[in-house]
């Protein structure tokens, strides 16, 4: 028999590497055979050499082992096993698994909802391509060291002035807001979203045109660009380009472009953009002055600048205010004031700006609220993860035997960690799917509740999935890693002997986590209650005027002949007041709840020009104060019997104070200068809330103007709406043809100022609810588990004679104590947080102890019910059954 000599080891090694265990035998057999043949023909050395060559060339077949069907990886087999065991454990303890998954799913859903809401709020004005370099010019006026005007709209001159003098400015654009009746072929609508804009408006902002040329559409006077919605409303299917529409029946405007509708998340919204030249033509006086270009005092112009990228705003503001020193010296000295024009990034407008004359004041968001919500989202998720940690460590004893067996069979600790992490990933995955399902199904309801406009389009958003992925990954790791290490660290000998008792450190941690959960829940509940109380306080506060049963009709803006204005107006009023259902009819330039845009400097006749201060101005008729039931605290109302009342004014208390009178009585019969006209104060009215109670009452001066109106106020007798309404509508149409009948009820109009707070409180409530449900799911799981563990103990106690109530007490004592500690922690935290929030309001409540007692009591009650339910069942079990347990 030939001696069998073995081929070079290195070749064999290569082959083993290349072909893997499965193929190695047969193929190395082939090479062996060749080697042996070659020894016979070529000699040992060449044979070895060729063997090595063959082995090296075999590298081309490196992928054969993967193709081979018999290949099986041991780790995939284990992975399969982990999944199987996970699913078995899940179905073995349906209640716990359900609680765990449900809690996680709710937490994830809540978090996703909030993140959607928050990301929408934060998306405002980010759709502009230039959003990073776009700024709004603010207008701030200091008088006597006091900030007197803090306004979002600036003066017409500042935009061009900046462009001429500041090198960073690429371009500027102004938008002068208007409202009026737009008419086309007998279609009349009152439009509130009209802006007079510079041609550059469409260039620096990203408001794309559907038709029309962006370079030329707004350069000519009497041209207008309309939105797609407006185009459909007035022209239907027809092409709007070249058509003429009229504004307030007098200004004809040719349509030169159609713009895409303004996205919801824009701080400025328009349906009509009128060219700035149109306005210039209207304001040009006989000397050729154009105040809408040159005025430094007419602050109604939303002004924006586009800067070069990388401009330093702080330095810019400083340089510009130095520049103004010379430019504005004359006016500043004359009126003893200092005007400034700081820049504000447009992306800050929605959330971080609450100034006078915001473009969409009702829509202004609240950066603090958004910040709070983000934190709440995080906490809810944290509570859900904590549930997972708590439940899985509590149940670790059940899994201890499995760990022991696995370890005995040779499992490494690392493998066990992987196993329990894998479980966490699987559970989190199921929860994630459920959570997404809740979001998809619930978004409609969420929108309804919060008045937001979220759509499911986020499902196509890459960032959204990135966030979801991050939540999943972080959540699985966070909630899985602690239980994984606890479970995998059991010593097999202890476990299998049954020596293992509840882990002390684990218990301690569980307690801390439960305290944390309930502290968070109580904070949220107390917060919700404070928000509600504040809302309640704001709506129940005495506003100083009566807004019930009050119908407001917007005054006519389209008028054939100006000469007939006065008489028609009077005739209409006479006709309406005949109606017995109408108690008062008054016309004025304003109604409560409407921001006044008319301001003017006033001063006492005895003071110098530099004592001039800015006041709001309103024009009202004789019946304004009685109709609104506004108290006159000194002097008298305007009276029909006083023929000189056109030279009289009435101020509110804030106005009197601003002028430096020590009391209302002292102010009466004093003279003041209004512009350069002398007026006499005949009365002082109570500081009623012109705007919401969120802001301080501002000085207002009322003058008597009989038949100039923006609003008719009809004070109705109780319960006679329909008739009075019909009558008003028919008469309005008869007297003011071509004017749409636009009306609102004053209470609705006034209360819309609280929309933001309402939404905030609803969102807050919803998620506080989420948090408490999730926390209770966890508590329920923990308490029922601990009851289960003590089944034998309870059985013995009962057998000896303990009664049910003492057993319930025994079982719930610990949990209730934890909840109580949670309360104690939550109270100061929520007090601090809510106090900060309340500081935003001019009139605010003080947080009382009842809030805490109530929220604490509510949480303890819920916790007691949760814990009590399971313990009661355990306590009532027949002790015989309990003693047989295990």
């Amino acid at each position, binding site marked *: 028999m030939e001696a069998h000599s073995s081929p070079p080891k290195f070749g064999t090694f290569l082959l083993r590497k290349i072909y893997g265990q499965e193929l190695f*035998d047969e*193929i190395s057999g082939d090479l062996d055979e060749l080697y042996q043949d070659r020894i016979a023909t070529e000699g040992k050395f060449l044979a070895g050499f060729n063997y090595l060559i063959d082995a090296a060339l075999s590298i081309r077949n490196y992928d054969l082992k993967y193709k081979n069907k018999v290949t099986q990886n041991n780790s995939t087999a284990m992975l399969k096993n982990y999944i199987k065991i996970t699913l078995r454990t899940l179905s073995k303890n349906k209640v716990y698994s359900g609680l765990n998954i449900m809690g996680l799913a709710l937490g994830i859903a809540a978090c996703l909802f909030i993140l959607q809401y928050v990301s929408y709020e934060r998306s405002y004005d980010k759709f502009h391509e230039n959003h990073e370099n776009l700024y709004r010019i603010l207008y701030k006026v200091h008088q006597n060291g006091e900030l007197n005007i803090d306004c979002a709209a600036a003066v017409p001159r500042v935009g061009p002035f900046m462009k001429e003098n500041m090198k960073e400015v690429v371009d500027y654009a102004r938008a002068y807001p208007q409202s009026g009746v737009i008419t086309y072929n007998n279609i009349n609508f009152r439009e509130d979203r009209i802006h007079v804009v510079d041609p550059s408006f469409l260039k620096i902002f990203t408001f794309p045109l559907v038709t029309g040329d962006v370079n030329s559409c707004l350069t000519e006077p009497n041209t207008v660009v309309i939105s797609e919605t407006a185009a459909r409303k007035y022209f239907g299917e027809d092409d709007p380009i070249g058509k003429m529409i009229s504004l307030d029946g007098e200004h004809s405007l040719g349509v030169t472009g159609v713009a895409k509708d303004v996205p919801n998340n824009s701080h400025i919204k328009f349906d009509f953009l009128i060219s700035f030249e149109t306005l210039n033509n209207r304001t040009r006086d006989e000397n050729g002055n154009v105040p809408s270009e040159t005025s430094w005092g007419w602050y109604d112009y939303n002004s924006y600048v586009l800067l070069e990228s990388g401009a330093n705003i702080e330095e810019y503001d400083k340089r510009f205010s130095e520049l103004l020193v010379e430019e504005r010296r004359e006016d500043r000295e004359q009126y003893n004031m200092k005007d400034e024009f700081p820049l504000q990034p447009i992306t800050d407008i929605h959330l971080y700006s609450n100034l006078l004359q915001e473009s969409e004041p009702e829509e202004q968001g609240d950066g603090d609220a958004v910040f709070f919500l983000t934190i709440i989202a995080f906490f809810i998720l944290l509570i859900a993860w904590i549930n997972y940690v708590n439940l899985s460590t509590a149940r670790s004893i059940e899994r201890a035997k499995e760990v022991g067996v696995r370890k005995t069979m040779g499992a490494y600790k690392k493998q066990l960690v992987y196993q329990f992490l894998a479980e966490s990933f699987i559970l989190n995955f199921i929860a994630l799917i459920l959570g997404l399902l809740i979001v998809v199904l619930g978004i409609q309801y969420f929108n309804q509740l919060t008045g937001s406009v979220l759509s499911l389009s986020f499902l196509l958003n890459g960032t959204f999935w990135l966030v979801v992925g991050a939540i999943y990954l972080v959540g699985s790791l966070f909630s899985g890693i602690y239980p994984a290490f606890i479970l995998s660290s059991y010593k097999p000998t202890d476990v299998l002997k049954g020596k293992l008792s509840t882990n002390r450190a684990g218990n301690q941690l569980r307690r801390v986590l439960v305290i944390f959960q309930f502290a968070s829940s109580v904070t949220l509940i107390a917060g919700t209650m404070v928000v509600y109380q504040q809302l309640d306080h704001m709506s129940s506060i005495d506003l100083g005027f009566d807004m019930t049963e009050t119908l407001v009709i917007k005054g006519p803006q389209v008028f054939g002949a100006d000469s007939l204005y006065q008489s028609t107006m009077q005739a209409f009023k006479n006709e309406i007041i005949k109606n017995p259902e109408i108690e008062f009819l008054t016309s004025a330039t304003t109604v409560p709840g409407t921001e006044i845009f008319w301001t003017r400097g006033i001063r006492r006749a005895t003071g110098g020009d530099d004592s001039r201060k800015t006041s709001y101005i309103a024009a009202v008729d004789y019946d304004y104060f009685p109709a609104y039931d506004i108290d006159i605290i000194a002097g008298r109302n305007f009276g029909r019997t006083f023929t000189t009342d056109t030279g009289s004014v009435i101020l509110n208390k804030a106005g009197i104070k601003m002028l430096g009178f020590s009391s209302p009585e002292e102010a009466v019969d004093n003279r003041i200068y209004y512009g350069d006209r002398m007026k006499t104060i005949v009365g002082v009215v109570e500081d009623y809330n012109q705007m919401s109670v969120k802001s301080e009452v501002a000085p207002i001066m009322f003058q008597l103007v009989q038949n100039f109106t923006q609003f008719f106020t009809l004070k109705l007798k109780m319960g006679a709406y329909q008739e009075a309404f019909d009558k008003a509508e028919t008469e309005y149409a008869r007297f003011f043809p071509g004017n749409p009948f636009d009306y609102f009820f004053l209470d609705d109009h006034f209360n819309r100022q609280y929309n933001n707070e309402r939404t905030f409180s609803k969102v807050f409530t919803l998620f506080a609810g989420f948090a408490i449900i999730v926390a209770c799911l966890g508590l329920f799981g923990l308490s029922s588990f601990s009851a289960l563990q003590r089944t034998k103990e309870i059985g013995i106690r009962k057998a000896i004679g303990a009664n049910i109530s003492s057993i319930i007490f025994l079982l719930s004592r610990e949990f209730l104590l934890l909840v109580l500690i949670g309360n104690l922690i939550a109270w100061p935290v929520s007090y601090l947080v809510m106090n900060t929030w309340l500081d935003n309001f001019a009139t605010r409540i003080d947080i009382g102890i009842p809030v805490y007692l109530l929220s604490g009591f509510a949480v303890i009650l819920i916790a007691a019910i949760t814990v009590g339910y399971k313990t009661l069942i355990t306590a009532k079990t027949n002790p015989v059954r309990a003693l047989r347990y295990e």
Partner: protein
Amino acid sequence: MKGTYLGEFEELILLTVAALGSEAYAVSVKEEAGNIASRKINISAVHSALYRLEDKGFLSSDFGGATQKRGGKSKRYFKVTNAGIETLKTAKEMKEQLWKNIPQLSFTRLFA
């Protein structure tokens, strides 16, 4: 038609396996094919082709015949499957067809 395509080397190996009958395993195939085609063939190329052909379903295999020479490791014997026979036939017919189509003229030119 991916999968049924037969490369020149694959066809040679497949034919060799068919010719060897029940005695076809990597080493014998390498030797036979090398003799017939009178070229040097590396064993790794044969392995590659054999397993690929098996993957395509033209060959089937079985274990057997461990010898001392092989260090006690068994051989993998290959057999041509029906699909393999079909593919070989198709390849052959295709070539015959092409031969028939070559015009007489070219022959004269070629062999003149």
